[in-house]
Structures are given as C-alpha cells and as structure tokens.
C-alpha cells in the first residue's frame, strides 16, 4: 500500500474515508469539503511531493444508489508513486467540488471535460465552459448514466437545431469582445507583451 494513505489518515483524520488497496493501486476516499486541502497537502508537503497530476475524471455507476465519484490521479515523479483520490457525491444533489487549477495548470481542460461530460461544477475554475461539446449544447451531460446513448433529442430535432444555429455562436462572447479587451488583460501580462518580451513567461504557480 502507498504509505501516503497512512500519512493522510494521520494528518486529516475524519476527512479521510476508506482506503482501498487493490491491483497495486491505492485509492483514498476524501470528503468533498476537505479535498482541496488534501490535494494541496499532497502536492506541497515534503516527502509526499505529488507534483504531477495524471488525470481528473469522474465515475457514475449503473447502480443509482451508488455515489458519483470524482477521481484525481496523482503521481510523484521523484518517488514514482501513484495515488488516486476520490470524492463521493450524491448524483441527485449538487455536484460541486473545488478546482485545483491553481495547483496544477494541467487541470484546466481536464476539469472542463468533467464538467462537460458529467455536469460537475469545479468551484474556482477560471474558465469553466464546455470543451468537447459546443457551448450551446442543450441535451445535458453525455457521460451521465441517465443520458441515452443516442442523445436526448431525436435526429430530426438535432438536425433542426444544427441548421438554425446562429453563426455568431461560433465565437464566444469573450472572443467577440477581443478588439476592446487588451486593456483588461492582467497588468503583468500586458506589461510583458508591451516590452516585446518572449521566453520569460511568469510562473503560473
């Protein structure tokens, strides 16, 4: 078993639920309220050093009574250890977990995908939009178990919507406003671009 699991239990106590160790993989269940603290602790604590976010995803079971799980796959590159953190949410309740984009920039698109496919909201995400489906997609979240394989709308309705789409919808509001938006960029980035500087990208952390 991954020793980080015991370390988590010792540090976070009640916030840690059950720990599963199977097939050489360690899964730690965490309460939704503390998951951000747990992930930040795992990343920043010396000796843990889970500096690499492998994946963020979600799992919904066919059994409607089972919780919907949000899954973080973490890796420590130095010690070559993998750890899976899970949060259980009620699929009929509010689906919300904190975002970790400020900890791992790679979480940005992964969280958007989970939001798109499962409808899980990542609070604090800087730009939580649909990513694989288009922004005006109205049929729901495709990877939910109550979503039919062929989609919610009939083929004729899908065709009708596709033909009636507003061409302006291909651009987000953000993009349509670009001509005026330079002044709204972060001061540091504006400054850097104004100096024509390349290769000196500020650290995202």
């Amino acid at each position, binding site marked *: 078993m991954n020793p980080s699991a015991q370390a988590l239990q010792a540090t976070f106590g009640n916030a840690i639920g059950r720990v599963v160790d199977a097939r050489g993989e360690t899964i730690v269940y965490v309460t939704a309220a503390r998951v951000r603290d747990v992930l930040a602790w795992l990343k920043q604590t010396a000796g843990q050093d889970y500096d*690499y976010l492998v994946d963020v995803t979600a799992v919904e079971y066919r059994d409607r009574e089972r919780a919907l799980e949000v899954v973080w796959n973490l890796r420590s590159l130095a010690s070559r250890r993998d750890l899976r953190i899970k949060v259980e949410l009620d699929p009929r309740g509010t689906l919300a977990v904190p975002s970790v984009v400020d900890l791992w920039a790679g979480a940005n698109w992964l969280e958007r995908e989970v939001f798109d496919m499962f409808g899980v909201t990542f609070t604090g995400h800087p730009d939580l939009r649909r990513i694989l489906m288009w922004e005006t997609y109205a049929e729901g979240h495709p990877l939910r178990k109550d979503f039919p394989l062929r989609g919610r709308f009939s083929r004729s309705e899908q065709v009708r919507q596709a033909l009636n789409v507003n061409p302006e919808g291909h651009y987000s509001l953000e993009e349509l406003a670009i001509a005026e938006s330079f002044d709204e960029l972060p001061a540091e980035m504006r400054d850097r671009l*104004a100096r024509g500087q390349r290769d000196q990208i500020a650290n995202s952390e």
Partner: protein
Amino acid sequence: MSKRTVELSVATPGADAHGDPLRVPIPASPADVDPELGGEHLLINLGPQHPATHGVLRLVVELEGETVVRVIPHVGYLHSGFEKLGEYRHYNQIVPLTDRTDYLAPMSNNVGVALAAEKLMGIEITPRCQVLRVIACEMSRIISHLVWLGTTSIDLGAFTPFLWAFQQRERIYNLQEMWTGARLTTSLTRVGGLLADVPDKFVTDLREFTETFPDTLDEIDRVLTRNAVWVGRTQNIGVLTAQEAINYSLSGPMLRASGVPWDMRKDKPYLGYETYDFDVPVGENGDVYDRFLVRLEECYQSNRILAQALDRLPDGPINVDDPRVILPPKSRAMNDMEAMIYHFKQVMEGVKAPVGEAYAGIENPKGELGNYFVSDGTAKPVRWRIRPPAFINLASISKMAEGHLLSDLIAINASVDIVMGEVDR
C-alpha cells in the same frame, strides 16, 4: 544536446546578443501607435479546416500587429463519444474503438487498452505475446513520429523530409497489413493475447526494416538538424521550463524536451521494457527544436528496441491458456461440445471482469496513454476513461504561443504533435 551548436547569427540575421531573434516591440500606449495602422487588436480564426492545424482544431487568435496576444483553442469537432460507447461494449469490443482515437499509432492504443483490461482481470500474458506487443508499440512509435516529422517540416517549409518519412512509414504499414490484415484499423490485441501471430515473412521483413531505416533518419537529421531555416524557426520558440511542463501535466516527448527524464517504459515498466537496452533522450531548453531532437532520437531508440525484440522473440503460444478469456479455435468450437459452450458464452455474454478498477498507463508516441476501467462485475465496464496525452499536451498551447509571432504559432502547434481523433475522442 550536443547538436545544438549551430551559430544562431547564421540562422537569423536579426538576432540579439543572446541569440534570440529580435522582435518589434508592441507600443506601450495607444498614443505611440501610428494612427494609420490603428491600435486595435485583430481576431483571427484558424481552422477548424486549416492544413496547419493538423486536423479539425480551431484556434481563435488575438493579434497585436503580428504578435499573438492570446490563443483560445476550440476542440471537439471530432468528438465521437468513445468513452460512452465503451460502456455499452464488451472489453474485446472496445479494442476497435481504440484504433480510431490516436489513429497515427493504432497498434499502441490496442496494447494500452488490453493491458488495462488484463490488469483488471488479473491475467498474465505469455512471453511471446509480450515481445510481439513491444514490437507493435515501437512500430507505432516510429510511424507516429515519422508523420510528425513529415507534417511539421511541411508546416515550416521543407517538403523533402515529408516524402522520406512517408516512404518509410509505408513499409511499416505494409508490415501491419501483413500481420493484421488492416493498415490502419489494426485491432491487434485481445484481452489475454493477440488477434493473430505474425506470419513468417514478417520477421525477415521487419529485420530488413530495422537495418535500413536508420539511413533515412540520418538523412532527415542531415537535412534538418543544422539547417539554418529550420533552426531559426524552431529554437527558442514555445519554450516551457521543466517546472511548467510538469505543472501542465505534459507527457511524452513534450515533457522530456523540457528536461524531465520521465518515460513510462523506464519509470513504470510494462511488457518487460526494463529488460531492453535503450536510452531516453531528454532535451534542455524545452523549445520546438528540442522536441524535434527528442522525437528524432526516439525513432533511433525504437529501432534499437525492435532489433532486440526480434532477437529474443520466443516461440510458444500468443494467447493465455484460459478458455473463459480466449476464444477456442473455430475447428474445435465446431467439433467439441465444451469448446462450443465457451465460444457461445464469450460471444453472447462477453468476458466478465471482477468488481474493481484498474489504471494502466503506457508510453504512447504522444505521451502517457492511460486506460482506466471501472467494473461492477459485468462484462461491460461501468466507465472507460482514456487519459488522452494529445489533449492534455494541447492544453498548454495558449501558454506557449503567448508573445510569439503568428507564424511561430504554427511551429508551436505542430510541435505538440496532436491527433484530433484522440483530443476529441
């Protein structure tokens, strides 16, 4: 890397003391802008059907003059819902779906999904199957990198390496066709084994390939690595530091070019990769040029692995000896009652996996391809998640392109080595 010795002043006449190309600075205030030229930012839409976006990627680019201020990527035009489809299919029926994700390296995807299913079911594959799967993975790596070399050189204005690369790629496609009957939709693996053993001629042909293929790599190396235009257009473009590369969860050549020596084959070995003798190339500067060097060197190393795999290819069965997992031969299924029952149950019910979950990551040409299966004990997974390396690598493009010229954006986009089938899945 020692190849980085080109005199930059030769490559770019407008280079500063550090060798960085000079850029026209952006005016700090609107007052400095020539009113004739206007100070407004320009919105440019690249794609989704644009030859330089390597598929149906759409980039909305905000420009200040010719300098990229912001890139907003739009993906999803090729979304096929593979993960949803996988929930309605038996584990073996998922294999054909993986052909179509990263369609530049289909065999390698097949291996990845089979490894995850076998980890979930606790199946140990045979020694011959292991070596054949290594051959499949490394052949995929070579053809994927060759497409990358070819298309990237076209993006940056060199046509000849494209022809050389595709000529060699054709030889591997012929081998794939010989092995599986298909050139692209190989569907090579089955849970617990392979679709078919290799034909006799395959080994001699692949041996001949490994002996002659490095000549083409040498040619590409000679024509590109010290080429002034190539160097000028790739060095110091799209730089990511090691820390940023890790923070963006990059994997594969993108991560290694930034100086992080992480390779799943070395650090989390599977298929017995720890017993092969090969090197993992690592870049120093994390720019487009280093990504090129890393991929070029990986082709040489894959060739080495192929030669070693051919030397050690053991005799024996390719499938595990378990009638619950592997279909019996057709002749037995027709004549033997027991074999027929197994055949019927497998085709109608599928192979049942125990309750639980498994994640298997392999080093695909694009990066770490992860397959994550969650099972509730039935023959179909509750959840099949592909960790798509190209998707995650592409997410860093906004960061890399910021402040570069529009033409450099093309080089940066090419250096990510995206394949939209996998980005959108």
